[in-house]
């Protein structure tokens, strides 16, 4: 995977995170090369969300380093990290329910000043999710679960991120919508955004990603190209429900 010359967007080196006395992340190292979809899979409590929260600056790391395009961003404040080009689609969507769909989208572009670019990106987002265009003046909280997920993804895209992190985008969605979300993720990636995807839906995530890491109670127990992980006996047994 990490062949010479490949540009890394994100590199995590030996990261340790604690919640009080609880050692949540026990020294993980992850590489996210430009233009790829990298996925972190694992069960509940494995530390997937904690990893993403630490990258985006919402949780502080005890030790280890996080580099974004070669710059050390470890423990920088969340708003500064967002400004550098990392956007997150948080778990459970976390849209702003009392703001309209349009206002939600504009919050994603909060630190941008290029009005033309914002307009272009809005059009692009409407082409990805035509339904959002119909609901522009509706309150975010009145959308259905699937629409809220689309809004959360779109909101993150509005910052025109260089790295898009998604925390369980398929959680709580009907199977048909899960398919749609995975398709959109691929589409976004094809148009040039690097993606770090965290999923419990291991099969779906591995199918669309290039490289995967398997997380178990704060450790990376397995990593490899996604196509290989799909065939791996341990992954099949533990995460794909096959024996």
């Amino acid at each position, binding site marked *: 995977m990490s062949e010479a010359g490949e540009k890394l967007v994100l590199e995590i080196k030996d990261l340790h995170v604690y919640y009080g006395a609880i050692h949540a992340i026990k020294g993980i190292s992850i590489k996210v090369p430009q233009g790829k979809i990298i996925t972190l899979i694992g069960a509940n409590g494995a530390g997937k969300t904690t990893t993403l929260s630490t990258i*985006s600056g*919402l949780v502080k790391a005890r030790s280890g380093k996080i580099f974004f395009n070669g710059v050390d961003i470890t423990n920088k*404040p*969340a*708003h500064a990290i*967002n*400004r550098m080009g990392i*956007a*997150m689609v*948080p778990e459970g969507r*976390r*849209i*702003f*329910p*009392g*703001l309209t769909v349009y*206002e939600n989208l*504009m*919050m*994603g572009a*909060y*630190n941008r000043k290029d009005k033309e670019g914002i307009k272009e990106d809005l059009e692009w987002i409407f082409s990805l999710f035509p339904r959002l265009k119909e609901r522009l003046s509706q309150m975010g909280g009145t959308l259905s679960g699937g629409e809220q997920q689309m809004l959360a993804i779109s*909101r993150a895209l509005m*910052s025109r991120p260089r790295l898009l992190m998604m925390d369980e985008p398929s959680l709580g969605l009907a199977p048909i919508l899960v398919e749609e979300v995975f398709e959109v993720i691929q589409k976004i990636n094809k148009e040039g955004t690097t993606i770090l995807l965290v999923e419990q839906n291991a099969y779906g995530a591995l199918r669309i990603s290039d490289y995967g890491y398997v997380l178990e109670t704060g450790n990376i127990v397995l990593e490899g190209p996604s196509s290989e992980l799909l065939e791996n006996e341990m992954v099949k047994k533990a995460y794909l429900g096959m024996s």
Partner: protein
Amino acid sequence: MVEKKLSNKTKFWLTIAFIIFIGFLLWLADRYFDDYKLRVLRLIAIYGVMAVSLNLINGITGVFSLGHAGFILVGAYTASLLTLSPEQKAMSYLFGIQPWIEKLHADFFTATIAGGIAAAIFAFLIGWPVLRLSGDYLAIASLGFAEVVRIWANNALSITNGPLGLKAIPEYSNTWWTYGWLLATVVFIASLVNSSYGRALKAIRENRIAAEAMGINVFKHQLMSFVIGAFFAGVSGSLYAHWLTTIDPRLTTMGPMLTFYVLIMIVLGGLGSITGAIIGAAIFAILFEWLRDLEQPFSFFGIQVPGIPGMRILTVSAIFIIVMIFWQRGIMGREELTWDNLIKWSRKLASLSRKRGEG
């Protein structure tokens, strides 16, 4: 039904016309109302400034601050010390006065601005520690800081005249000053709320963590909202002082009670709605005056009721609880009285009455 929307230009002129109309009504009132009614009318505007500024902090940014009376007090004292004449100050300070305070003098407008700025500086200083907290802790800490200034004012004899308070403050708060400042406050805060900055404030209220992940510097935004809210609270303090003409650091004039009165206004009107804040202020001011009779002896269906002090606030509380049971989000909720909403509501009413007619 085709959604017809008014153009921004039409709305602008309609708003101007509306303001002129209100101005005309105020002119009529100013001419024909008796002194007592005029005082209540002015109080509505002063309460309005208090409510709209607290609404920016509590309703829009979602910072549950209980320090408003502290800001009002800082504004009231600063402005009053500036408008009182040196002779008047020399007369009322029985325990001596700092010479530099005695010399200070300014006109009402400058004094009011100075009161606002003093309150804003105070908010900036206490904002650093207070806004590190959240929820109940923030409420308690801000309440504590407001009490600290009040008790300081009670003891700093050579500056504030201590418990004797300031007397014979000129009654500058006429209808035009009070309503002018209310207009300025509403225009400023409404345009703030409708800017991208205001959207960020609302986003913080809706979901702090998501807002942070969107690249919003939550602390900086909350501090700004706190400081702007405090500025207008300071302004309202100046207006209030020049309406009361006597201020002192007693619990009941500018103590925690005042904060809770303002809180009642904005919750009653609808937390997060500027229109609601003004409606809440008007209802509170009128109700509080009207219920004054309850504290006098009166007869109720032939039963003689002696005047019980404190009956007013008890009754207001009861009314408040009833309103909260039926309108949990207050009178306006988070809606504003805008031209678009007016059209929307009148359409709704029309279609409702049509349905009733058919059925």
